[in-house]
């Protein structure tokens, strides 16, 4: 007999997208999203992260939080690869509107247009928005 945790076979892998729209500090959304991603990584689903609007700042290189007395958690995005989370999508328009380019980001990402990202969202089974 299958153990309870074995009941669902590999056929039930779902596409999860975590959508990050907020600046890294000032609200808890960015950190909470990252923590949920790290915890949920154990469930071996098809996970991707999307960064748009002010969410693109979450991946900005050279964050210095000394002035606001918060922990700089941006190095943790570099740990995602070790958790087998390698699909990071960044919306090109959000970057451009903020004067940023891919070179300003601290992890390798795939930059895609708003239109392409919307299409990608359409293909997800679950979208979690932060």
């Amino acid at each position, binding site marked *: 007999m299958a153990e309870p945790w074995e009941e669902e076979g590999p056929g039930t892998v779902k596409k999860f997208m975590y959508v990050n729209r907020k600046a890294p500090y000032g609200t808890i959304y960015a950190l909470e999203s990252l*923590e949920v991603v790290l915890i949920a990584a*154990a469930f071996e689903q098809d996970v991707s992260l999307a960064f748009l609007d002010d969410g693109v700042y979450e991946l900005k290189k050279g964050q210095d939080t000394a002035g606001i007395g918060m922990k*700089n958690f941006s*190095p*943790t995005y570099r*740990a995602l690869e*070790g*958790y087998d989370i390698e699909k990071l999508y960044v919306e090109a328009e959000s970057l451009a509107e903020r004067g940023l380019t891919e070179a300003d980001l601290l992890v390798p990402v795939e930059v895609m247009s708003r239109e392409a990202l919307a299409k990608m969202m359409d293909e997800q089974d679950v979208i979690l928005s932060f």
Partner: protein
Amino acid sequence: MPIEVNGKSYETDEEGYLANLNEWNPEVGAAMAKADGCDLTDSHWEVINFLREYYEEYQIAPAVRVLTKAIGKKLGEDKGNSKYLYELFPYGPAKQACKYAGLPKPTGCV
């Protein structure tokens, strides 16, 4: 509950993890282990030091699956497996080794 090491008191949370990771030193780690009935060997320290380096780089304590894989990469496949790590840290390698390393309890699957 605070722990006493060499006449100095160290604040811990309700599960015994060090409250301020900057206060950590090897003596504190050894004292925590001793309280759990565990004498730390060089093999234990290898994992503890690895965890401290991981935390320094990524600002998180890794989940056990990630720790196991990373240890294998760094210290060799004979050490990057659950059997080896659970023999060293029977309460769970990530959970127990993080405690002695002065790190917070790992996020997620421990």
